[in-house]
């Protein structure tokens, strides 16, 4: 199976007045196969969205980026002119559809602008078919509507339609269901899965919600403080998590089955992005901490999973 996107050693620093203030991404390695979904899961501030921003080539000028992002047959796109790739071959949907649409233009006007930019012929028919394909039953009304006139679920569908107008190779979905009710969110996830089956795009699915990621992804990457600490096939990672952080995250999911008061509560907090991290970023919160953790742990292969942890390594 061919690789659509390969990220190697991606690091991002922020620099103000020539001084590096922090390094929110500290070496991200990821790979997405054609037609498959890679889910990135992690807590606030771990670098999920920043990774997506880097792929789209939308980092602010204060960011210094190192490493490679290889995309399809374009090779390394970190230095390429992203204008032709972004929004056509790689598209993105966001957490908050309200702010992804411009409130003063109708949905139709905004979709038309995208369609024109992508050189789509017969725009009205294409837009109607596209909106129908995402389960919006009354395309005419949706096209005439302004963003505030549609429900969150409908807007999210309209945004998916916009992202798929150009038949992208890769769709980046950044917390696409976080702002929706659970049942509506589930419908949107099923919709995306059905569209993916039909149209064959690869997907990078980003969420803090482990359950949502597990539902949608073929492979999972767990990010902690700007580094991938564990990757592997979703079923394997969910069944036998190897990294102590992944184990903690899965143990922290409450349920009727777990006795009250006994959730795995990882002590402390996710380190602030301003912290200068040496060695394993999770060491301070880890019950398996040892001397070696002061050094950066290497990534080792355990079965189909890759894990960055000294304790697993030894």
């Amino acid at each position: 199976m061919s690789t659509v996107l390969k990220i190697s050693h991606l690091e991002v620093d922020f620099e103000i007045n020539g001084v590096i203030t922090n390094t929110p991404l500290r070496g991200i390695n990821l790979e997405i196969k054609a037609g498959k979904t890679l889910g990135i899961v992690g807590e606030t501030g771990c670098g999920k969205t920043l990774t997506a921003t880097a792929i789209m080539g939308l980092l602010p000028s204060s960011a210094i980026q190192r490493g490679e992002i290889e995309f399809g047959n374009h090779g390394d796109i970190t230095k390429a002119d992203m204008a032709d790739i972004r929004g056509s071959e790689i598209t993105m949907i966001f957490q908050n559809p309200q702010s992804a649409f411009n409130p003063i233009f109708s949905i139709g006007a905004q979709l038309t602008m995208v369609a024109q930019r992508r050189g789509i012929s017969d725009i009205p028919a294409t837009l109607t078919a596209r909106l129908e394909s995402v389960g919006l039953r009354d395309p005419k009304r949706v096209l005439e509507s302004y963003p505030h006139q549609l429900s969150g679920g409908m807007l999210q569908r309209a945004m998916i339609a916009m992202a798929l107008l150009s038949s992208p190779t890769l769709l980046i979905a950044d917390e696409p269901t976080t702002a929706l009710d659970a049942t509506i969110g589930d419908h949107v996830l099923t919709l995306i899965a059905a569209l993916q089956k039909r149209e064959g795009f690869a997907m990078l699915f980003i969420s803090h919600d482990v359950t949502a990621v597990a539902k949608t992804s073929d492979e999972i990457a767990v990010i902690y403080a700007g580094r991938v600490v564990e990757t592997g096939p979703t079923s394997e990672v969910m069944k036998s998590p190897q990294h102590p952080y992944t184990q903690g995250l899965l143990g922290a999911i409450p349920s009727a089955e777990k006795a009250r008061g006994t959730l795995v509560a990882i002590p402390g907090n996710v380190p602030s992005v301003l912290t200068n991290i040496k060695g394993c970023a999770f060491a301070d919160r880890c019950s398996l901490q040892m001397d070696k953790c002061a050094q950066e742990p290497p990534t080792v292969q355990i079965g189909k999973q890759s894990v960055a942890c000294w304790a697993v390594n030894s």
Partner: protein
Amino acid sequence: MSEVVMQISQVTKVFPLRDSKVGFKAVDSISIDLHKGEVLGVVGESGSGKSTLARCAFGITEPTSGGTTILGESLVGKSRKATRELRANLGFVFQDPAGSINPRMSVYDAIAEPLMLAGMDSASIDTRVNFLMDRVGLASSQLSRKSHELSGGQCQRVAIARALATNPKIVLLDEPTSSLDLSVQAQILNLLEELRRDFDLTYFLISHNLDVVSHLSDRVAVMKDGVFVEVGTTRQVIDTPKHPFTRELIRVYSGASCEFDLDTWQDGPLNRWAFQNVSTFLPTKVIAASPEPLSLDIELDANLDAITIDVADSTYTLPELLADVDTDSIVVVRKGVLVYEKYFNGMTPDSVHLLQSVSKSILGALYAVMAERGVIDIDKPIAFYLPELVGSVYEAATIAQALDMTVAINFSEDYSDPQSEMARLDRAAGWRTNTTGHDLGLRSFLRTMTASGEHGKAYQYCSANTDVLAWLISEVTQTPYQDLLTRYIWQPMGAHDDASVIVDREGLSVGNGGISCTTRDLARFGLLIVNGGRANGEQVIPAAWVNATFAGASADVESADYLQALHPGGSYKNKWWITAGASREIFGVGIYGQYVWVDPTSETVIAKFSSLPIPVDGVHSRKHMALFRAICAQ
């Protein structure tokens, strides 16, 4: 059970709306007791009314009617002082921890404030604040900090300490962990449980997150549209959910894969989504609504919810039985008036749903019109109109035989066998993945069908017979099937919304089960039948055909055991099922629980969609029959 510490009785909250006299009823007469030391969890989605209920119950918002008693004393109609004393028994923790602490106050001041208001002296306050800090797991070094210097988890710990400052008995937890990361949420949930045990607290917990609610609560109430649709112990609700919404929530939180699969979309649970969304994964064509839709008078009959229905040694109320058969929607029209209407599983009056084989009954009506207009002669063999079917079973079988399912054909309608002709038909129609290299489209599949005996003698249900008829009529008229339905059925009957029909890879309509429409429009179609083929004062389909359909198949036709077991004396005619029951009902039925039920005696029409986990079984069929008959008997 331990003593009742809070009694919420008949709480209703109505918010006025500008253009409505009745206003919006956010909470609809909810009553529930909280027992000492228990955690009652209310789970619901945004807009379900859970926060409004809590605000009314805790005296933050004045309910429109009803009220709360706390430790036996009513919150309403007390003096300010008495109210304040009573409220000292209540604590509050809200979702946004930073927002519930004054940003200009230090942690110390935030926790001390309620104690000062309660009139405690400063030395005691000091002791109490330090005690609380310790209990919520904060170091005393953090006392001088302000909220912006704390993490979300620390803020929530401060909010909890403040809520517990005056030693309340009952604490409202309104989405207490919704803005926290998973690992921090676990810390707070553990802390809340520890505090509850140590201080003998009673919690009223509200959350959209079923995992959080079911983890912490002794009892769970599931709230939707202002009412509790289900209340029970956590185990009862999670293990044996009764209401479809509860089941849907549990499924969503179960982590069941959202992976869409073209080979399993018709089965549960994927069908709960797929039946409302076929146009997102299969090609469809529009059956257009009428420019002048038939308006339905609505006079809801509240008595229907109270009827009881006996079936299979159990007694159900109507809502219970609807839940039991995985209902997605139901519309009941009695004597032209819509008297009952319910939607579940995300459906609304605007939602369309796949009809499955109820689509066949619509085709039957179209053929009645086509035959009357002389477009076709139903006694002619099918191959007379479709010469390319010479050599197949359809060379000799007539249109009438295909309409009545008396074609003797080598065809297994087994929905579970991937080798059956039914599975081949699904692959040909594009309803399943097809990697076989043959059956590429309905036409090539239908050509391969062979005869198994003499036609017209015995009833044999075969879906392919309907696909061949959808093909035939569009070939003869040189008009797409969906356009024929639009022109001769959908618009004349006054459909309010567009419907659609699934087409195969060649654009040929799937006649056997591809139509999706709204529940009300399916009821309008039933109405057309019960009114003898008339709608809007026009004869849309011939009355003679409607009468012939009610009369059923000729007694000479050999029936099938399963049909006789369910409907003694019943038969299949013109793509409708005839019950031969006392009320002479006829109906259209589709797999996984789709129905249009027409009872001429009580002039009742029922349109009903479901997403049952399996295609057909006698138990669910019997439940549906009992349900329809009980409604019609009212």
